[in-house]
């Protein structure tokens, strides 16, 4: 088990600065760049998903999970309806583009704004409710939105089918690969998405490390104390909810482009539930926890649903193939087991906590060897 003191002791073994550079100030930006650079080669390897498309999906979910963690990890608010803001961003952008013919960049901005504004209003209405009522109310709003989208009001949302073909002319599909055409250039969509994701996550990081974000953490730690020390707890919670809505809306807008439309499931309880599970699986106390959770969750889902035959190379010439199709129909069960095991091993700290612990142990061993030499 990991506790705060243990983490601190581990962290105290890492260098804090190199020369005049405070490592804390570059850790997150460097980490985000590494994620974008390494994610696609890693998931494309034949051992894992074996194809590239999932890398874009994972990036978007990383941003979505990080936006959710503003609430759960940094403010201590549990929302069961975060899908609402992902869906709002996606639906507003897609509907604006297909139904009103507005330029995609404009409708994307409107999508993020609507998502932010709705989050602010809902936040104003519900943050002062107790934790359970707050969770149920968020669920209620998301369910209501999904119901409305399903009814296809004014032919805006496409009903159960969602909206398709909501892509601007500069978004090019070529033999299954996605490109963004700028001037005469065709940029790989993954890199464009990567830049957008990194900028979004850096903005979230700036929120959590700012005095505003540190106050959110104080509220998470002890909201009664924060109140008695003069903190307007409810207002901070409203703005935390607003920022979570903003970045979820951004993820929604990007997702809309990635899937060239919307699907009704974007607003579903399953999406709200998945982001909770990913965040807790990854470790809500770390900035990189939820992205790590999104990565593991989506990859595990991909592996468990798509691979029906496991090829075990025993020797150079004989390969034993095991038919797993019967077992893997229970893939959700296996995801559940993964979740339970990680949470039991490392509550709060999640997978990212385990990774950090392992990393620090390796670092400690290497450091010890160097010291001895």
């Amino acid at each position, binding site marked *: 088990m990991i506790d*705060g003191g243990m983490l601190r002791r581990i962290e105290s073994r890492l260098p804090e600065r190199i020369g005049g550079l405070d490592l804390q100030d570059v850790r997150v930006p460097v980490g985000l760049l590494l994620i974008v650079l390494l994610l696609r080669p890693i998931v494309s390897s034949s051992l894992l998903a074996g194809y590239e498309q999932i890398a874009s999906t994972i990036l978007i979910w990383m941003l979505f999970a990080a936006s959710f963690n503003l609430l759960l990890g940094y403010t201590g608010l549990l929302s069961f309806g975060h899908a609402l803001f992902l869906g709002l961003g996606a639906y507003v952008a897609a509907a604006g583009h297909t139904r009103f013919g507005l330029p995609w960049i404009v409708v994307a901005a409107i999508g993020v704004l609507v998502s932010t504004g709705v989050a602010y209003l809902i936040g104003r209405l519900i943050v002062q409710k107790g934790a359970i009522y707050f969770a149920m109310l968020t669920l209620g709003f998301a369910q209501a939105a999904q119901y409305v989208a399903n009814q296809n009001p004014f032919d805006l949302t496409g009903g159960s089918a969602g909206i398709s073909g909501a892509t601007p002319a500069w978004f090019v599909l070529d033999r299954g690969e996605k490109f963004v055409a700028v001037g005469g250039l065709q940029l790989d969509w993954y890199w464009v998405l990567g830049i957008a994701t990194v900028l979004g996550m850096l903005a979230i990081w700036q929120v959590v490390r*700012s*005095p505003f974000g540190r106050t959110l953490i*104080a509220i998470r730690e002890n909201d009664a104390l924060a*109140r*008695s020390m003069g*903190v*307007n707890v409810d207002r901070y919670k409203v703005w935390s909810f607003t920022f979570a809505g903003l970045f979820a809306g951004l993820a929604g807008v990007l997702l809309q482009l990635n899937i060239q439309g919307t699907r009704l499931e974007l607003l579903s309880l399953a999406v709200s539930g998945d982001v909770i599970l990913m965040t807790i699986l990854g470790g809500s106390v770390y900035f990189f926890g939820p992205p790590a959770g999104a990565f593991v969750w989506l990859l595990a889902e991909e592996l468990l649903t798509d691979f029906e035959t496991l090829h075990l190379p025993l020797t150079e010439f004989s390969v034993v193939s095991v038919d797993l199709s019967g077992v893997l129909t229970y893939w959700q069960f296996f995801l559940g087991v993964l979740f339970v095991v990680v949470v039991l091993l490392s509550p709060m700290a999640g997978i990212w906590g385990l990774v950090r612990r392992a990393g620090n142990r390796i670092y400690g061993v290497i450091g010890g060897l160097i010291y001895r030499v």
Partner: protein
Amino acid sequence: MSDGEARPDHPAESRPEDAALATRGLTRSFGALVAVDAVDMSVPEGELRAIIGPNGAGKTTLFNLIMRTIHPSDGTVWLGGRDITDTSEQRSPHLGLARSFQSNQLFTNLTALENVRIVAQTAQAGPFSLDLLGRGKSVAEAEATRLLERTGLEGNADVEATNLSHGDQRRLGIAMALATDPDVLLLDEPTSGMGPTETRATADLIDAVRSELGLTVLLIEHDMDIVLSIADRISVLNQGTVLKTGTPDEVQADDSVQEAYLGGMKEEL
């Protein structure tokens, strides 16, 4: 019982407007139990007033009422001449009223410095500030560092509150209360759980800080040595009512106090 009216040598106290902190008819009942019963109290500016009384006398409830953590069933709370009964709890520190808690109420997984810094930042920037760029950070941090030095915690600035010793946690609570830049400070058993040396040091700290800053202090304290050495006046609370208010000598000499409360502690006094 009104301590103000009973004291002609403090005529100003009869008006709640003239005291640094005052209550009038302050009452709170929980069902059939009246925890605080029509308390009239006037604490003039700069006074260190100890509140003593047996367990269950309503001392902490009185603090909760003054801070408006809980709402009174009846009566009013006055701060610096202003009726603050209906202002919210989170306004208190911004009006100059702060408290430290009986149990260690801290932001447990944050460092000592961050605990104080967040409070200092709130005192400087107001109840809400959307400071996303860290403009106020260095000022608040300087103030927090200064307060940690003042309370003897400078060596533990980077230690998480949960990993501090009990005594250091109590001092951190005081540092946080001071970070609100208060005029009136409520301290709920600041020395509980401390050894004799630590207790003495904490009492000296409170005494020194209050004269430096000209604070009005309300102090709930069980250690009678501390009470008698640093309190200007003492209010004895029993079953939710003020039995007696007076100087340490007056309170010790009072028969009703002897009977109701100090009987068992006579030899200690």
